[in-house]
């Protein structure tokens, strides 16, 4: 071997050795540990800082407790707060705090924590969460009073948000900008041991945990000692990991994987009511959707039942209005709900002057009823969009599908008048989503319907700012929702459920999962076999 060849081999082996040393692969997992895979949608969540991060993964609810948490029926339950009350005028909220709670770093949780915590949101991307709070007053060591700028009946919903996990003031201030990345300290059932964004988070049990809510059967420390949360972007890979025993649980399973998982021996699938709705916004500023008859015809051309049955095997529910079914604001006048009615759809198009032409596509004045139908990449989106295209054609509306990635489609919406129809979804458990998607202040994106109607704006303002109590808020949002429905600015399609899958041989999971998602309240009850 010549000198040059030797040098080449030497250089290559040096690179390999140096790289191997820096990669530093950890040891094989121990039997008492559990490994869960986070939802593919949560891959790349950059931080465990609930005050500043705009994306958080499920692990946040394992590290942090919140003041209150929400059950699947939308009811609220105390966690760090044991009770609360709002003044009659809605201008103050008083919270009694749970005693004897300590952060993972040994610091006490008390009224001073809340006095420090609420103002921390000011100037962050999550500031809207606490916008309505003017100041926090300490009543005693375990009682705080929020003095409001304006009544906010949505206070409990905000307090139950994942972004309202309460961090340790001492750790938060000490770590500064690195908080949530190099360290995160809460009062929750698990302590953060390590976090590599996009890869995995390792959590260890908080042996002193004593702040479980009533949604947990186990009121003490979690049963799992060490929990690894892996981030796997490819659903097929995650499925194969569960199948081969590489992981114990998938915290999200796409509905099209359900048949495969249900056929797997030793794998159990749990479903929870979903918070997602698939729908079609119609651009009301672009012909032919400037005509309410065409919008109404489009909405009644969508066969929700067919999509639910044929695409999703009956798992989930039809969407007949804009909100998830568990919300009170979704219980609108039944006449306003939108369900498949092809005869009505065809009659409306006839009335609007669109007559059936060559190839079954309608036309008016020689112009065919051919529209753009946008969607984003992802198997579910593509499949739903293809079925929607066929359903529209059945009533005489031709649709040309264009698929974008999520970031590009948002930029395209902002061009305001480029889009006509789109298949999209949102995931949210509050009626204020109506404001997000239909407010005249957000035309293009996220108001993809380009809906800017004086009456709608008035109802929106009343719902968003004019409610003092929860009941008033529900009534106001219901009225707003009903008006939006009456104007056919979107077509509802489908409400998926949340699917989780785990190995029955390796995990023991409660028969009933409490809460809106599988979060910290359930994790304390899960046991490694």
């Amino acid at each position, binding site marked *: 071997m010549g000198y*040059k060849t030797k040098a080449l081999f030497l250089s290559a082996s040096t690179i390999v050795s140096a790289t191997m040393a820096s990669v530093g692969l950890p040891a094989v997992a121990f039997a008492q540990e559990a490994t869960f895979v986070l939802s593919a949608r949560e891959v790349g969540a950059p931080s465990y800082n609930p005050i500043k991060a705009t994306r958080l993964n499920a692990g946040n609810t394992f590290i942090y407790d919140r003041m209150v948490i929400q059950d699947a029926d939308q009811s609220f339950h105390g966690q760090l707060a044991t009770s609360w009350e709002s003044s009659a005028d809605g201008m103050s909220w008083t919270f009694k705090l749970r005693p004897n709670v300590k952060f993972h770093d040994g610091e006490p949780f008390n009224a001073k924590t809340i006095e420090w915590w609420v103002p921390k949101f000011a100037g962050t991307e999550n500031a809207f969460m606490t916008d309505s709070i003017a100041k926090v007053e300490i009543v005693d060591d375990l009682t705080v009073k929020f003095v409001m700028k304006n009544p906010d009946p949505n206070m409990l919903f905000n307090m139950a948000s994942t972004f309202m996990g309460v961090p340790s003031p001492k750790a938060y201030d000490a770590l500064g900008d690195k908080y949530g990345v190099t360290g995160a300290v809460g009062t929750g059932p698990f302590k953060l041991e390590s976090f590599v964004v996009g890869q995995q988070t390792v959590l260890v049990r908080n042996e002193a945990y004593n702040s479980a809510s009533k949604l947990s059967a186990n009121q003490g420390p979690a049963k799992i000692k060490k929990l690894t949360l892996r981030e796997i972007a490819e659903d097929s890979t995650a499925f194969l990991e569960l199948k081969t025993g590489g992981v114990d649980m998938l915290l999200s399973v796409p509905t099209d994987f359900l048949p495969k998982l249900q056929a797997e021996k030793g794998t159990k699938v749990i479903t929870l009511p979903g918070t997602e709705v698939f729908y079609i916004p119609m651009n009301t500023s672009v012909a032919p959707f400037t005509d309410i008859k065409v919008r109404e015809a489009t909405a009644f051309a969508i066969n929700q039942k067919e999509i639910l049955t044929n695409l999703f095997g009956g798992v989930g529910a039809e969407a007949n209005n804009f909100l998830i079914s568990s919300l009170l604001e979704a219980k609108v006048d039944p006449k306003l709900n939108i369900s498949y009615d092809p005869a009505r759809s065809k009659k409306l198009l006839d009335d609007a002057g669109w007559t059936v032409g060559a190839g079954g596509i309608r036309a008016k004045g020689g112009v065919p009823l051919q529209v753009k139908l946008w969607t984003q990449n992802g198997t579910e989106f593509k499949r739903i969009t293809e079925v929607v295209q066929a359903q529209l054609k059945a009533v005489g509306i031709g649709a040309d599908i264009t698929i974008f990635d999520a970031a590009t489609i948002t930029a395209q919406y902002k061009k305001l008048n480029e889009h006509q129809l789109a298949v999209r979804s949102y995931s949210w458990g509050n009626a204020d989503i109506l404001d997000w998607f239909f407010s005249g202040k957000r035309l293009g994106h996220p108001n993809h319907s380009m809906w800017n109607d004086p009456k709608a704006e008035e109802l929106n303002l009343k719902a968003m700012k004019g409610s003092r109590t929860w009941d008033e808020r529900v009534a106001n949002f219901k009225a707003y929702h009903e008006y939006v429905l009456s104007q056919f600015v979107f077509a509802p399609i489908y409400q998926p459920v949340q699917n989780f899958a785990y190995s029955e041989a390796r995990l023991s999971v409660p028969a009933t999962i409490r809460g809106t998602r599988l979060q910290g309240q359930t994790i304390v009850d899960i046991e490694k076999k």
Partner: protein
Amino acid sequence: MLGYIIKRLLQLIPVFIVVSMIIFSIIHLVPGDPIDSMMQIGSTPEQRAELTARYGLDKPLPVQYGIWLAKMLRGDLGEAIILRQPVTALIAQNLPHSLLLGVLALAFSTIVGIVAGALAAVFKDSWIDRSVMTLILLGSTVPSFWLGLLLILLFAVQLGWFPVSGARTWSALVLPVLAIGLGGIALVARVTRVAMLDIARRDFVMMLHAKGLSRWRIQFGHILRHALLPVVTILSLRIGWILGGAVTIEYVFARPGLGSLLITSLNQRDYPVVQGCLLMLAIAVMLGTLIGDLVQAAMDPRVRDSST
């Protein structure tokens, strides 16, 4: 030789500037921006404007490029908008994983490719030649993404020999290395075969036969040695390719690395990270080319002489 190295290094400077401009332009001209990924349900248009200004995204593109370039020349690739860490730290965290995968895949494809190419050349036009080249052709036409999934199904799911994904054990490296490396064997084998057949026709080989050296000694001791020059050139060009090829494989195998970081950041339009990752891949290609040229010049003085 020193003059040749300096000349080649100086030639890289304008290439680097042009590449940095292309990288910056491409990512900024693609529709979408990182602020959309940061907007929460309930946040206001004013908050959006404030965030856009905070990250300097309201400035004209040439100004943004100038700021990025000036920082980059000081070794600062900026702060990730979404991931909120210094880009250099994110790259430092991920690059070793990609390098390890890339180097092992390169080594695998080189060794197997040279052996396969040499066998095909030695047994030219026999069933061995035809079998080797057919298998290689098949291997090179299978997309690495699909090949990765097939390898998982066979070796991880059916046989249970290796883990499906991740980077938690050394055995987790085997399937990704195979998925990348198998695709690279074809080129190395073909170049080796053609080079060996070409060298075999040279006069000095006739002389070696006339001297009575054994067939194997001539083939592997002399012909293969001389045939390695074009192989080394090809290998150096593949350094960048290997890192780039790891992008999809890291995704399929849920491995850390530049590829995973790039895809995550691209989906969220985290400009500084995407720019940093693409820059690293471009530098890998440039360095690969440079190394190839230098090795070639070192092995064949005619190369450096012709360039002066």
